[in-house]
């Protein structure tokens, strides 16, 4: 009996010497990893297509069939008229990020550092937009803007909508960072005669900053990528996602894939650089 426990334990700790060899037992012990590998492959399938077709030779107006390798789409990104919408998306994204990060960080500090009447209702109000389908948020904002016709639909209505749905995600992200702080660091600062203001700016804020940066990046990507809410509040303005969606009828040019691929690689580099910098800070 004891030997069974021992051998089970050995198998669990996956000491290679005691494990039975051969392809079938290997498959049995690694089945989870194999399935996970296939799932990751599935997640990357469209990325391969996006990158491959960004090098497609431009023939005709659509980009569904492979015509051969070409650098033409990468050299001539603006050729297909996407740079206007792309610029608008950047403008809206940056403004919405600044506003939602500012407002959201204040809310996050209030909710995680104070106990007050109405705190749970405030938490609920933060949670609700994340649990509402985008089509409901977009259409309800449309009914608001329609009733106040003096607000022209376009840049400002899109920005207002984006700040609204980014806010909750900023609050959740920054709150998580504040909750992860070691409170003893602030206590130590105060023990060493730092007043509240100094403690906040020398200790608390620098420690929360990575969370705020993460929240800002998240807000930007949410804003930059949004189609549904924007579609209801855009008026005549055309953001990059609206332009891409509109191309469904005209045919999506390879330049869209160039932007898609560039977004993918730039974000990937940013994330890895961020992790590397984070590691150095810890050391």
């Amino acid at each position, binding site marked *: 009996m004891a030997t069974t426990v021992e051998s089970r334990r050995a198998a669990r700790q996956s000491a290679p010497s005691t494990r039975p060899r051969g392809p079938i037992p290997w498959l049995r012990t690694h089945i989870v990893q194999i399935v996970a590998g296939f799932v990751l492959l599935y997640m990357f399938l469209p990325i391969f297509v996006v990158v491959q077709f960004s090098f497609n030779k431009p023939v005709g107006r659509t980009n569904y069939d492979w015509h051969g390798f070409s650098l033409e789409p990468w050299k001539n990104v603006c050729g297909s008229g996407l740079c206007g919408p792309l610029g608008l998306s950047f403008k809206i994204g940056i403004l919405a990020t600044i506003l939602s990060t500012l407002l959201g960080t204040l809310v996050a500090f*209030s909710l995680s550092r104070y106990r007050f009447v109405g705190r749970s209702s405030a938490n609920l109000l933060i949670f609700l937009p994340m649990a509402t389908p985008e089509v409901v948020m977009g259409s309800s904002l449309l009914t608001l803007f329609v009733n106040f016709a003096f607000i022209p639909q376009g840049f400002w209505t899109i920005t207002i909508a984006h700040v609204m749905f980014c806010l909750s995600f900023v609050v959740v992200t920054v709150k998580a960072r504040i909750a992860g702080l070691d409170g003893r660091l602030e206590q130590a600062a105060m023990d060493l005669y730092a007043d509240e203001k100094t403690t906040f700016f020398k200790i608390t804020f620098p420690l929360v900053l990575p969370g705020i940066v993460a929240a800002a990046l998240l807000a930007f990507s949410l804003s930059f990528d949004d189609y549904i809410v924007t579609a209801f509040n855009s008026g005549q303005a055309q953001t*990059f996602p609206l332009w*891409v969606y509109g191309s469904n009828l005209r045919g999506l040019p390879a330049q869209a894939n160039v932007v898609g691929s560039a977004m993918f690689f730039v974000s990937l580099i940013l*994330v890895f650089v961020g992790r590397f910098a984070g590691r150095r800070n810890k050391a």
Partner: protein
Amino acid sequence: MSAGAALAEALESEPHPAPKRGRLSNRRTPYLLLAPGMLWLIVFFVVPMVFLVSTSLQTGSVSEGYTLTFHVQTYSEALRFYHAEFVRSFVYAGIATVLALLIGYPLAYAIAFRSGKWKGALLILVIAPFFTSFLIRTFAWKTLLADDSIIVSFLNTTHINSIFKLLGLTTGDRVLATPLATITGLTYNFLPFMVLPLYASLERVDPRLIEAAGDLYCAPFTAFRKVTFPLSMPGVVAGTLLTFIPAAGDFINQSLLGRAGEGMIGNAIDSAFLDQQDYPTAAALSVTLMFTIVVLVSIYVSRSGTEELV
């Protein structure tokens, strides 16, 4: 698209006690910090909801203007006209959620328990595909599911497609412009919202508990069924909600990958608002969608016994 990441991070973090501050004099501080953000949400989230409900009870037209007449019949008419869209939305979103759970669980499990030093890199890989635009990825599925693509030829030669055909998910030899394509897109696009909460709750499972089950002669699968899975329930509930809610309201996957004329409720709301400009009907559909989701979610959350989640 890494919205799930924020949630995962929120679920993951363990609260450390913050220093107690006995500042009775600063009672107004939390409200002052809260005010701008809350005001924004009230004016641009709560108030629009009120306008939405009121619009759904109005009659009139865009040119003549609308008046509030409490015309409740709009709801019954909208439901009679669009009930197929409602059913389709919830069926598609339901199937996509179950599929995302089935394929997301092994991935989350492998990252939580079997990845060793690669954990961080794998987590980045999970969200990496979502760095690029949602729409461009969905367009890529159009290429992947085109009639002469490898995937579709494989499904046809192995006769797997016949099974889908029997289930009514595909027609002929095609996959594009069928319900299967829509469901594939929905599953794909909302998968990280499933994987990240699952990972966050699996990460918290103490491996010693699983070990203890093994020591007590539990077969590995029984240990999973009786120990690991129940402990990961908060992640399962959060993940299914975060997948189901956006999937039920989505219309991009349907309109890019699905068949025209077989819309989901999102398509109906979109066209009623923006093409037909029938605001009362569109608003009634939106309110009904929101109401249905709230009811379904509360039943689901109370049944699964994880009310403390929110």
